[in-house]
């Protein structure tokens, strides 16, 4: 039945430029169906993440597109529940030389070297982030702890729906990395929280640590409102004909389906450690991957490299597949399955 309604809905919404008078009579009863259908659709995938009400749990992960204002609008239209900007810091960075990314089989490797126009330039480009038609998450980082605070303050002035803190990008040499040390993680979290006002803050963790649970615990204790898990896992590929690493940066981060089991394990472990919500990110390509991540304990799911495999409309595809799975398995909403793999 819903499929029929769906078709009616799309026929109606097709913008075929029909006249007003005659078709109006037909339109009215169909609109009731349309609203009914929309209502069930919203209810099934609707996700509450901190104080955000997302139409669905799919979020564009940081680092894929998300550089320009117009790309945010385009991804919003393609069905994402929220969009995370590419990470910004206190200064402009050109990033690494190419090749910065490539894929083979189910592995994707990248080392872009955190290029970005810098928060000051981004403030001029975006002006504000709360009127782009989709909730926008501002991703930030700094080199020193106080810079995290400064960038957070500027980002907060743009009114993002959430601030995500990249303490985990494996491509930069901070000296002792923040992501690998619970104490540093806590300090960065506090610095951002002090400058973010009421905007919720999520700390993005790296899988390249001995124990991700203690890092997540430190972030929660320092006031984090959510955890984004995970960033890429470090990796490398050497071209045997060239006898050289392919990435200009030599090493990079692994994403794509190959990252998923690591991400699911991390989210599973973090869910048992903290009470704050988790944005499960890593290798989500199909609806079933998203369901799996939610069963591990994720509240929402990040999708990045999925665009490479399935196009910008991967968000709509994943949502449709999730819905289909839910209907088949008689699951009414995502709360029913969240964390169900535990215990």
């Amino acid at each position: 039945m819903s499929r029929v309604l769906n078709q009616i809905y799309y026929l109606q919404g097709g913008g075929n430029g029909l006249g007003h008078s005659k078709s109006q009579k037909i339109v009215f009863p169909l609109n009731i169906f349309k609203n009914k259908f929309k209502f069930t659709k919203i209810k099934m995938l609707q996700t509450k993440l901190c104080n955000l009400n997302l139409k669905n749990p799919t979020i564009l992960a940081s680092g894929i597109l998300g550089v320009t204002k117009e790309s945010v609008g385009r991804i919003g239209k393609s069905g994402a529940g929220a969009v995370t900007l590419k990470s910004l810091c206190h200064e402009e960075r050109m990033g690494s030389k190419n090749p910065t990314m490539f894929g083979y089989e189910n592995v994707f490797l990248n080392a872009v070297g955190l290029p970005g126009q810098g928060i000051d330039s981004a403030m001029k480009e975006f002006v504000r982030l709360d009127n782009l038609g989709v909730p926008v998450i501002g991703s930030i980082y700094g080199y020193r702890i106080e810079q995290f605070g400064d960038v957070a303050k500027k980002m907060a002035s743009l009114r993002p729906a959430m601030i995500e803190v990249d303490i985990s990008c494996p491509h930069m040499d901070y000296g002792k990395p923040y992501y690998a040390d619970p104490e540093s993680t806590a300090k960065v979290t506090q610095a951002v929280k002090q400058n973010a006002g009421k905007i919720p803050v999520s700390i993005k963790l790296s899988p390249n640590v001995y124990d991700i649970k203690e890092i997540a615990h430190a972030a929660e204790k320092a006031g984090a409102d959510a955890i984004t898990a995970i960033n890429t896992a470090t990796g490398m590929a050497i071209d045997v004909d060239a006898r050289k690493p392919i990435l200009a940066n030599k090493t990079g981060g692994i994403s794509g389906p190959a990252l998923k089991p690591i991400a699911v394990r991390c989210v599973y472990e973090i869910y048992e450690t903290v009470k704050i919500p988790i944005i499960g990110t890593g290798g989500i390509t199909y609806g079933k991957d998203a369901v799996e991540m939610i069963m591990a304990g994720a509240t929402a799911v990040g999708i990045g490299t999925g665009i490479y495999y399935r196009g910008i409309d991967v968000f709509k595809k994943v949502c449709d597949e999730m819905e289909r799975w839910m209907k088949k398995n008689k699951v009414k909403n995502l709360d029913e399955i969240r964390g169900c793999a535990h215990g």
Partner: protein
Amino acid sequence: MDECCRTEIPKLLEVSDVVKEGKGQTSFFFEHHLDCKPGQFIMVWLPGFDEKPMAVSYLSKNKFAFTSQAIGKFTTALENVKKRDKLGIRGPYGNSFSIKSNACVVAGGVGLSSVSTLIDSLKNPILIYGARSKEHLIYLKRYKNKNMNITTDDGSFGRKGFTTDILEEVLSKNKKIKIVQTCGPEVMMKKILDICLKHKVECEASVERYMSCGFGICGKCMVNDKIVCIDGPIFNSKQLNQMSEFGNTARLKSGRKVSLKDYHLIHS
């Protein structure tokens, strides 16, 4: 579910021939089949150095080439690449030019290399080609049998002036022309678009931007809401007319928007 096995990785190919095309322009040939349409591009990797997008400039059944003009560090480093050296190639990427009858092709400078496979695919197109001076002209031998209208800025070869002057004349005289297809400096292409709009002739232009991935995920090559590497590089009149950034601004590697002039200064 084979979508999750997509492979986009440079493949090392031996350079089968190196041909000097003009002052600073060089073509690198590969004896390899490339399934490519006119206007598409490849990513060329100089191992251990850098990787850049390049238009496919020669295409036959088992051979292809790209033509590079030594401007920046990468293209200058390519000058040292010799026959039998290996370069990493991936692609082709992007969309392609339309193949229509009664076409007029306008090229500026090394932009001719981006429309050369188009010219080879068209039946008797009208050709307009301009460069700064005689020594910057390429493919003169290749197209000696084609009726090419050549201009140079300094008048050292062909007619003194610009390609846009000739296009204006051609479109005024020849009402049969259905489409103008172009590649060259963006300021020139913007003028060509304006001339085409005035004469109500369809226009297609090949747009260049800084690229990292070539397959639509890094977000660096955006022009307004268009991703040049997957939505383009060929855009039609309607799209170009809606792009406020076309002919005006471009983004640096960092994502910051600057004037086209600054973009070329910083990225060359």
